[in-house]
């Protein structure tokens, strides 16, 4: 097992190199010029050219890529063109809100989606099942920002129960931290809940037809025991896979959610960096998220062995 983990971690290195080259090339050919954005609207073309030169943006592709890659090898993600702050510091500054949002969303989604998926499978083709699946379709269909605005309007503006925007660090108290995350997590979690609920239902329906479930019933195991002990455990592998894939969905959704709820997270940092063509920041974020995604997939693979003892690496 240990050698498998080491092999998988080592295998991430070429993946990261390909990602690095791809991202750098993509940004190189993308239109836009950070110097023009920095110089401002009143700047003359000469000013823009001087700034471009001072930023080293006039140098050839290979030299720029070589320099950046050398920095990466030394653990340095570079310096933001705009803020003049280290990219690593910018990401670190923004990591807590995004990771908090993802963690709360993930917890909420799993806690809601798995039980309702199980119930939908148990009550398949009944009104309960149809209502749950109708909610799932709605969750898929309504964009995150629409849900976000509606939630903010009702629960923040009309009822004044929760704040409209912002983020409070967890160090300032658990409730203030959680209070700021409830609406964004619900908004972001809708799609995720719908996805997991549907997969849970489909997988559970299949498992509930199996012989061992019939045997369990014959042995007198109660409905709850059958659903949540026997069936759910055997249906867990596809569900966990979807949860893993959904992390990428969360990363994408966080960009919109953080904008709607003015959360100073990595999603907002990404959008701002793209709009300004802050190349080092974009490259740093993409690398970090790629690495995170590889690690999540590794964790999911390892979780398979816990859920299904037949799986061995």
């Amino acid at each position, binding site marked *: 097992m240990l050698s498998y983990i080491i092999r998988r971690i080592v295998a991430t290195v070429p993946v990261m190199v390909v990602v690095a080259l791809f991202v750098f090339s993509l940004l190189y050919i993308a*239109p*836009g010029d950070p110097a023009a*954005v920095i110089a401002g609207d009143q700047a*003359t073309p000469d*000013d823009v050219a001087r700034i471009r030169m001072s930023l080293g943006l006039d140098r050839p592709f290979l030299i720029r890529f070589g320099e950046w890659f050398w920095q990466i090898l030394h653990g340095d993600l570079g310096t933001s063109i705009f803020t*003049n702050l280290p990219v690593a510091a910018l990401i670190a500054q923004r990591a807590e809100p995004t990771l908090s949002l993802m963690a709360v969303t993930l917890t909420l989604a799993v806690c809601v989606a798995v039980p309702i998926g199980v119930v939908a499978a148990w009550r398949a083709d009944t009104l309960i099942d149809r209502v749950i699946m109708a909610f799932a379709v709605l969750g898929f269909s309504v964009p995150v920002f629409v849900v976000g605005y509606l939630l903010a309007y009702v629960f*923040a*503006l009309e009822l004044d129960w929760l704040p409209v925007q912002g983020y409070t660090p967890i160090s300032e108290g658990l*409730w203030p931290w959680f209070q700021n995350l409830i609406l964004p997590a619900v908004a972001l979690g809708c799609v995720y809940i719908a996805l997991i609920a549907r997969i849970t239902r489909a997988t559970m329906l299949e498992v509930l037809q199996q012989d061992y479930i019939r045997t369990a019933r014959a042995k007198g195991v109660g409905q709850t025991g059958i659903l949540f002990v026997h069936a759910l455990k055997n249906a867990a592998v596809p569900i966990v896979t979807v949860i893993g894939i959904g992390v990428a969905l969360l990363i994408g959704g966080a960009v919109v959610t953080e904008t709607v709820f*003015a959360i100073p997270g990595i999603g907002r940092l990404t959008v701002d960096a793209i709009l300004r063509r802050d190349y080092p920041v974009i490259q740093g974020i993409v690398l970090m998220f790629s690495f995170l995604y590889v690690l999540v997939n590794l964790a999911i693979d390892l979780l398979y062995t816990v859920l299904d003892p037949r799986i061995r690496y």
Partner: protein
Amino acid sequence: MDRRTFIKAAAGVGVLSATGGVAAPAIAQRAGARVLRFVPQADLANFDPIWNTQYVVRNAAALVWDTLYGFDDKLQPRRQMVESEETSSDGLVWTFRLRPGLKFHDGERVLAKDVVASLARWQARDNMGLMTKEIQQELSPVDDRTFRWVLKKPYPKLLVALGKVGTPSCFMMPARIAATDPFKPIGEYIGSGPMRFVREEWVPGARAVFERFSDYVPRQEPQSWLSGGKRMLLDRIEWIVMADPGTASAALQNGEVDWWETPMADLVPVLKKNRNVMVDIADPLGNIGSFRMNHLHPPFNDVRARRAILTAMSQEDYMRAVVGDDDALWKPLPGFFTPGTSLYSEEGGEILKGPRRLDAAKRLLAESGYSGQPVTCVVAQDLPITKAQGEVTADLLRRLGMNVDFAAVDWGTNAARRAQKSPPGQGGWQMFHTWHAGAVCIDPSSYTAIRANGDKAWFGWPTSAKVESEITSWYAARSLDEEKAAIARLNKAAFEDVVYAPTGFFLAYQAWRKAVGGIVKGPLPFFWGVSKAA
């Protein structure tokens, strides 16, 4: 007490303590009232007002860095850091003396050497700075509080240059910071202004915090825009960046923020209905919409094609697209300078007045040799003002029978593409849209878009000897009448050669909670004199 009652009571206390729901002591409430939460027009991504000339940077910089002179609400430069100035009779030698007691936020005194270094850095980046540098013989400290500026020829607009609102404004920094290459950003944010920048709380893209500088000594005169006594009635100002206008609107209504600099026109009716929110014009100097044509390539390298645009365009169409149906927010602008200011002129602006003449415009276009070639109109979609103007232009050009290549891009791409001089088919362009702050268009000092010096001009690279000659006349003018005459001739020349097409004059709102007092209209948000009731 039974188990349930105990759990409820404990949970209640826990929630109340966590939310701050327990009545806060009076001192804490007063302290909270001295914290202002402000939603700026954009993100403060960088904080070097010389390197980065975006307005949002200047607006924040005005809190942290002081200026030698500052514009008042009559658009006149007034002494700010300067106690007195003397000019030789020939206008070549200027001797300035600084006010006593000026201190930087690191506790060091503001010395003449700091001023000299700051001026040198500003000169490299500012249009008027470059002009002063060209005619400068000497700029040096005389003693700790005095510096001398010796020029090779008189420069009557020197105090305007030192106090102007247009970017980059002439901010004073410690000499060690001002020694930074003007084309590279500074790394320390130490000024001598009324507020200090709390760097450790700065989250670019999200938050910037300023705290009152207790050693700041305001002038005795009443405050007026960037001049007079900048008395801070707040201890702390938090700039909270909100990319989404809907969120900013909700946060203001909910009392989570106190002041929103640029409410979106569509949301203003909602804000006006809220009894806790005030809405008013932000900047009486407003903005001038701009339809910029490329003078290097056909068809707009021919003045007849450019005049065809002026002949056909309806400023009302543009302005309604920009600000909606609120007539208080716009007016037609048959001129290039800010209406309501002393130099405003409509000389030569007849081409924009009266009914629009599409047929005459078509004839002019045909005379220019245009025969259906594609014309590239670059339109930034992420800025509502450029997007609205671009859509009106596309419709106008189609009605003129032009073949429009509508390039929908984001502002970053627009900014890069407009710098391309290559032909439109090879990455260049024929048109783009922007707008100019009215504070910049009060005279030619910071108004780069009015320049027509070919290769050195602003994007579009217009060439007009008449325009350039009148700009020189304005700089040389020694009285308001001379200035007015020069600007009238300049306005006429700019219409004759169509430096660019003004699409109209428009205003914008600002909104704040009623608990906030002392907000004034101006080209930037002035925080001195602003208070917040508990």
